[in-house]
């Protein structure tokens, strides 16, 4: 097709970098706002500084690492269930 040669926004690695930097900026700003905005807390754990930042980051890393380990036990070929179905 004609548009195969057309360059798109993320074909330029600089634009990808920009997105990543924007994410760093958002993370930094939201973390700093922890000192500015008084958070109403329902639970003592919540009052820890950067609680949600740390929890979000750690939860996702643990999730991915655990899922990677799970793969070693659970992963099979694509035709695992079809193999002896007939």
């Amino acid at each position, binding site marked *: 097709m004609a548009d195969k040669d057309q360059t798109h926004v993320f074909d330029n690695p600089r634009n990808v970098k920009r997105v990543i930097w924007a994410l760093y900026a958002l993370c930094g700003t939201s973390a700093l706002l922890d000192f500015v905005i008084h958070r109403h807390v329902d639970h003592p754990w919540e009052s820890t500084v950067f609680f949600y930042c740390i929890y979000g980051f750690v*939860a996702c890393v643990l999730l991915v690492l655990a899922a990677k380990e799970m793969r070693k036990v659970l992963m099979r070929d694509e035709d695992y269930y079809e193999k002896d179905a007939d």
Partner: protein
Amino acid sequence: MGSFLTMGATAPFVIFLAGAILATATRGHIRSVIMLAVPLVGAYNLYSMPDGFVMIGMLFDYRFDILRLDKLSLLFGYLFHLAAFLGIVFSLHLRDTTQHVSGLLYAGSALGAVFAGDLITLFVFWELLAVTSAFLILARRTERARRAAMRYLIIQVLSGVILLAGALIWIDAVGNTDFGQIGLHDPATAKGLGSWLIFIAFGIKCCFPMLHNWLTDAYPEATPTGTVFLSAFTTKVAVYALARSYAGTEILVYIGATMAMFPIFFAVIENDLRRVLAYSLINQVGFMVCGIGIGTALAVNGAVSHAFNDVVFKGLLFMSMGAVLYRTNKINGSELGGLYKSMPWTTGFCIVGAASISAFPLFSGFVSKSMVMVAALEHGYSWVWLALLFASAGVFHHAGIKIPFFAFFAHDSGIRCKEAPLNMLIAMGLSAAICIFNGSYPWVLYSMLPFPVEYAPYTWAHVLTQSQLLFFSALAFCWLKLSGIYPPELPSVNIDAEVVYRKLFPALIRGTGGVIAAVDGAVRMATLRMLDGCIREIRRHHGPEGFMAKTLHLSSMVFWVVAALAFVLVLNFAHF
């Protein structure tokens, strides 16, 4: 259509049934108009019903409460009309009568179930849900889909049979057929047994852990449009049924938290992107089940409003992946990527769905999911709250980032296709608009909830904490991806609880079948050999050459008689 309106209010499923019959008889644009009119007429019909409206049917001496209108059933009623409308718009390009008709009948069955006032009526629609929806999987018309549809049907019908058994025991014990609060009772009593059986039947349709694989097995095998319908109705009918009969049942808090947690691990390593969404559907239903288990006004409001939002944003995500499958014939993350170049609108709508399911501020998940989480904290379920928070970060990870990233961005797969058909784009656009509207202006949705809402979603603290959670989850994804730790998308199957009935049972049956066949063969052989021996013996004596069958000459006969007489005479001599 007019006749339904002039008749006054009618049961909602009747309108969908009539629409399905008309759709069978028509083609092309006329059918499209009829199908679009069905949910609109249905919604007006619902709107025209007075509060507390009840419709009763009689069969012989039995009374059926065909329609019971209250805030809870009305909310799900409107939701299902909306979902049906969006699903129909999404499937207008099809020329497939099977899918159109079964889609309408399936939506109608869901409406029949939520408006049912007694357990027997509920059972009838419960089974109709199973039968009508199976055609949306069969319509894929592949051997793989046919097998998945059969497995799906067996489990769904099993749920119906358990419901019927439980309902009959329950009705006998309590003396009425009312579909109302049931709760769990001591299973040693008849009442308790009934309550547990009904609970399990609801649990199967609701995807309780270990009973959940029918969904992840069948939904990804359905047609691109079929999955959009499937994702809206069956599980939400089950959520409604739990809210109606088991609100405040504590075990549901833990079941819900488990449901919210475990599917996200499978979603991270799953390659089929519609199966990723199927796992994330269970994860979202987990939040609802948890809310129902807590059972307070805030928690049930949260569960029900989240069901509403989930139908729209999960439908939207399934639509975007359906559009990808429709255009590229591929759905595995390992084969896709870079589609934002060919399908920019679909990409945009998918991102709105992803933001909504991740509960970004201003998107619909933000205003409903947090109600359940606040309720969990208020009632001292600290660990459950932590689990739900983990699941919130996880859902952003697999549904919010993984789905759009691997389909539309990641590495360029080189696939260049057309943008989704116009009707699909309209359906996605409408869904996206509803996601943003409910997220930014939740008060319309809040006014429809079963209990008065005192919850304020937009506080500085809530906006900030949720943003922090999501931004840092994204940061984790970014870091894992850039450092190469993130597991690549691989063509594979991951074993789940379904291995029991898809692998172990068949193997067991084959194994025991072998033993039975061997014993059976040996017994048959021995019996045959014995019979053969008997026949040979009989043949020897009575066969043509046999002694007993020999024909003798008359004179020899006389000779033997005389000989016998002579023998007797000799004996007589001996006597004297």
